[in-house]
């Protein structure tokens, strides 16, 4: 079983990303990944699990998620109901302990990958509540008075969209990587990985149009990598010729199938206005 991550056939990893992943795998500390939405943060955990051949446990965080839910939950309501119905299993409280994602990962036969997705969505105390579990990889179940210890330290990958600040004590325990928006060369690699048979010309035109679009000032949501991939998928499906993508063609001012790139009505509107002004000045 290889223990070095070097990108996969579906995922282009930059050198600094590989270093961060390998450091966190080797030292058994969590890796915190930040970056613009759509730059492949969640994808990273899946690809790490796939390339190292490890099981993946996903824990998606919502604003209502509590740290305790990742460990276990005591289902008091069904126990109460069972006691009303006179079931015999009611005498063992263990029957009503529901394991969380972290517990499941701790019990895995081989070293697993645990994805804690979008940790910034949770309450600001959430990361603090997991400090001990992340440090020692163990926790205590009060109801059954047992210690749960990880059989193998999981590879923990945590993603954040920077909506909330994470506490310092938590950050100190992590490796950190910020996925920068890829430059044009990396972007070509990424597109090549996903659509290897794409016509070179079309790719070139599409990328030029895409980066030009990102430069447009005032966009609410700049298109990112995943939107570019969607867009190219559409362009291919529609078999649009490369010439149609050139933005200097006045009739085709807005790139075809722009809906895949711009996700916001105001953005589309803004782009139309800008192009209109641009054309008027050109005259």
């Amino acid at each position, binding site marked *: 079983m290889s223990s070095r991550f070097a990108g996969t056939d579906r995922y282009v990893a930059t050198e600094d990303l590989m*270093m*961060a992943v390998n450091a966190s795998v080797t030292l058994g*500390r969590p890796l915190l990944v930040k970056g613009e939405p759509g730059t492949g943060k969640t994808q990273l955990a899946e690809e790490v699990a796939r390339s190292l051949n490890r099981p993946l446990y996903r824990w998606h965080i919502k604003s209502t998620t509590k740290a305790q839910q990742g460990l276990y939950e005591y289902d008091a309501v069904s126990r109460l109901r069972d006691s009303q119905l006179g079931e015999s299993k009611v005498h063992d409280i263990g029957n009503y302990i529901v394991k969380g994602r972290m517990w499941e990962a701790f019990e895995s036969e081989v070293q697993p990958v645990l994805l804690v997705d979008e940790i910034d969505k949770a309450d600001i105390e959430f990361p603090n509540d997991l400090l001990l579990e992340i440090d020692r990889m163990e926790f205590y179940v009060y109801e059954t008075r047992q210690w749960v210890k990880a059989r193998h330290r999981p590879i923990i990958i945590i993603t954040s969209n920077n909506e909330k600040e994470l506490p310092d004590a938590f950050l*100190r325990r992590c490796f950190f990587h910020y996925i920068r928006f890829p430059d044009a060369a990396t972007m070509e690699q990424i597109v090549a990985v996903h659509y290897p048979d794409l016509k070179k010309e079309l790719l070139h035109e599409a990328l030029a149009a895409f980066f030009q679009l990102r430069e447009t000032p005032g966009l609410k949501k700049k298109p990112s990598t995943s939107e570019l991939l969607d867009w190219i998928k559409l362009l291919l499906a529609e078999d649009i010729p490369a010439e149609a993508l050139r933005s200097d063609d006045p009739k085709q001012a807005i790139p075809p199938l722009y809906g895949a790139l711009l996700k916001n009505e105001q953005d589309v509107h803004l782009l139309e206005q800008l192009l209109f002004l641009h054309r008027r000045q050109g005259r």
Partner: protein
Amino acid sequence: MLIRFFFLLREGGVPVSITEFLTLLEALQARLANGSAEDFYYLARSCLVKDERHFDRFDRVFAAHFQGVEALFDSLMAQIPEEWLQRMGERTLSAEEKARIEALGGWDKLLETLRQRLEEQKERHQGGNKWIGTGGTSPFGAYGYNPEGIRIGQNESRQRRAVKVWDRREFQNLADNVELGTRNIKMALRKLRKFAREGAAEHLDLDDTIASTARNAGLLDLKFVPERHNAIKILLFLDVGGSMDDHVRVCEELFSAARSEFKHLEYFYFHNFVYESLWKDNRRRHLEKIPTLEVMRTYGHDYKLIVVGDASMSPYEITQPGGSIEHWNEEAGAVWMQRLTRTWPHHVWLNPESQQRWEYTQSVQITRQLVEDRMFPLTLSGLDRAIKALH
């Protein structure tokens, strides 16, 4: 090993802790970076820097240290263009001292004397009360204090009431993604949370369940209640530009904390004082104005109004029609302020200027009366008191 680097990082403003440093050493011992400088760079960055905003600082310290440049900070300083006007240590004057300093002659005389002094003076100068330099009390130079001073080579207005500002003035949008140090503010803002139950019933209401079960002859009757949400509504008016330049940082922190704490938060910008229009985007402030009356109609009495501004300006800007420094206002700022306090009875004014200086600025006094003495300093304790006043 690398201990000097560690301390240089701390001096360079990267918040590195001992734990993180030991992690780096552990990683080196595990042979994670195999001798290549690039590998080491990536590894060190991943271990030591936990925020992409610090990447640039890290890079600079890294480059300096590993190229054997001894005088790191000289090179950092060299990037500041007006070398002889560096801010090397501002003189700390007490409020009394400031109040005592009197303006020197008229505008023409100031310019005349400036020309003379520029000719006389050839070298960099700091402190003192005559030569052009930094941190002094002479009317010429920057970062000093003289109410009628002329500013030379300074990017932000250091004190109020400069007769003329020669620097280009740029307004800055208050970025809500600046998260530094906002945690304390968030904790303080939490006190303002008023919980209301809305939405789907998904939490077990234990008390009600017990009561209903008992009524139900012991047969279980589960009762649920909706989860509690933060139902408070906040309207935030922020002063930008001019004398607020010094406080941009703390305002950003407040704004950023408020943004993530409250679901119903609306914000508007104004300059110096509130008149008939406000705006939402500072870059397009001259194009996209929103009438204050419309804001008053849109957001109901249940909103709580928080105004953030230093209230430091000429008193005429508040009391007189046409007093605004940017446009002709038909009605005086005071009239508008009274309308605001009537529309939103729960209001406070947060002032980032330190409280000791308030009594020396007339406009602050006027504003305090207008907001019914609900002006609080923008500090954690001030915020606490403001939140009590909002309840």
